[in-house]
């Protein structure tokens, strides 16, 4: 994953005086699933629309494959887009929607490709039903099929699981993972963080139009991992004791006084007992576990305080 395919450089979009997205910096590498997290109105859709070429940035630049498009729109052709509601004609069938787009793309063997996509998204049995008779989940799946029709390198999905039932959410999740396995880079926004945490390999947290943090899945897991936070007089005295007495393997020294212990089979009571027995003063000790939701809230609150 070393190939940077999209780079947002100080991307800003203002509507009159209000900034919907402000100075966004984000790098997206080939094969990643990037989750865009943010509250309603945080600027997720606007950011995705700028990346997909639907909305022009007020300032800043987009680089594709390390090149600035500079008026060349051809890079946008390599993206499949499903932003907000799927763009579909309701009075025709899903097949006909795909057929129309296939004509626009100039696909040679469009019928075979349409059949393949309908099968992929699980709509091959509904080809004669008009889109107005589709459920929300079916529309979203057809929207994904539409986005995939042009064989894109990048798939941009804005809230693809909005309004879906648990079964629908699971199906979309599996489809996204399947597409990613086939080599597609995916940008996905959602405010259902639990779902996003099951698929994304990187997260960009947006707050009031600003990307306040870009964090990898591993880093996030590490930050949200269950741990015991110990504050002692001197960490360098406490560590050898814990290593020797409790066979401590997984820990992190934060500073001269603070240590995080990640070995889940060690209890607070054991640590306190051992440290006290060896004359190490314990200032505080507490168990810490954070969900993605809590982390997101904490991060956006911190950003909010910074703004204030």
């Amino acid at each position, binding site marked *: 994953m070393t190939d940077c395919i999209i780079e947002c450089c100080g991307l800003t979009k203002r509507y009159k005086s209000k900034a919907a997205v402000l100075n966004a910096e984000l790098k997206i590498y080939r094969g990643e699933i990037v989750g865009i997290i943010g509250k309603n109105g945080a600027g997720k859709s606007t950011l995705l*629309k700028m990346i997909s070429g639907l909305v022009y940035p007020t300032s800043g630049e987009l680089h594709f494959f390390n090149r600035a498009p500079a008026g060349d729109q051809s890079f946008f052709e390599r993206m499949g887009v499903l932003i907000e*509601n799927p763009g579909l004609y309701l009075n025709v069938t899903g097949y006909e929607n795909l057929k129309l787009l296939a004509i626009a793309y100039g696909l040679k063997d469009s019928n075979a490709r349409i059949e393949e996509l309908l099968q992929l998204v699980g709509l091959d049995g509904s080809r004669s039903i008009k889109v107005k008779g589709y459920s929300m989940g079916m529309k979203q799946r057809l929207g994904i099929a539409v986005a995939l029709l042009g064989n894109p390198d990048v798939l941009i999905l804005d809230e693809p699981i909005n309004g879906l039932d648990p079964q629908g959410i699971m199906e979309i999740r599996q489809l996204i993972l399947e597409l990613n396995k086939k080599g597609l880079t995916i940008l996905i926004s959602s405010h259902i963080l639990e779902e996003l945490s099951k698929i994304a390999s990187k997260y960009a947290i947006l707050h009031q139009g600003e990307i306040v943090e870009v964090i990898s899945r591993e880093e996030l897991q590490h930050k949200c991992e269950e741990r015991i936070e110990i504050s002692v007089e001197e960490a360098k005295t406490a560590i050898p004791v814990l290593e020797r007495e409790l066979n401590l393997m997984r820990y992190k020294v934060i500073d001269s006084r603070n240590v995080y212990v990640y070995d889940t089979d060690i209890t607070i009571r054991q640590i306190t007992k051992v440290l006290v027995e060896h004359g190490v003063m314990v200032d505080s000790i507490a168990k810490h576990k954070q969900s993605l939701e809590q982390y997101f809230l904490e991060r956006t609150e911190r950003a909010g305080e910074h703004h204030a």
Partner: protein
Amino acid sequence: MLNILRMDFYRFVRNRIMYLLLLVFCAFQIFGIFMTKQYAQEMEKGGISVSSLNESDFIQYTISQPPSWMLVYIAVFSIFFYTSEFSSGFHKNYIPMHRARIHSVCSKILVLAAFVAMLFLTMLIADWIGRTLFFDNTSLGDPVYLMKLLISQFMLHWAFSILILYIVMVVKNLLVSLTAGFVLALNVAGMALSALESLVQGLHLSQYLLINTIVRVKDFNNAADILHTAAVAVIVILVFSFLAVRYKLQEDLN
């Protein structure tokens, strides 16, 4: 460009509203001829009864009667064809393609040309049926004159459809666009400007307005009239096509 045009034409030929509009137009055109026979047989156009007019003169006569129903049908179709794609959001699926914004507008302009051509064809068929049934008159007049008239009016009506396309693109609202279309078809602006002009001596700008040019009875054997008509049509087509493409290129597709 060709692919987007093919897509728009695929949608155009499968569009039931288009056929419905043409059918309604055809029916009303025949009904109009019937009503003319019933109540306006005595009405004279420069001393000649309407029933004795050849097709060229009959077209000039019907187009010059306000409101111009052809313009109303064109406005309705132009607004419908554009908003059906825009409000469904389907354009978002292909607009990231290379130069798709330009191609999309150009293809819609060509589809509108096809619709205007079909409307004229329907008018000719309806006139032929109506005039045969009610006037017992199938005279076409001078075919060259008729061709000049049809080509000129086609250009003017196509220009009108592009003007409406531009309005609906900018306004993005069905009701406001329809209202604007009706107001233009009724030539309210043209009449108001003509009235104002009558207060100022030597000013004759209103004759160059598109709708005024459409409804004015012209002599297509007169080179000045042909030049006037062609100039107005070409200028409106070029200006509003350019404005529509430029608008689409700068538009944020939210």
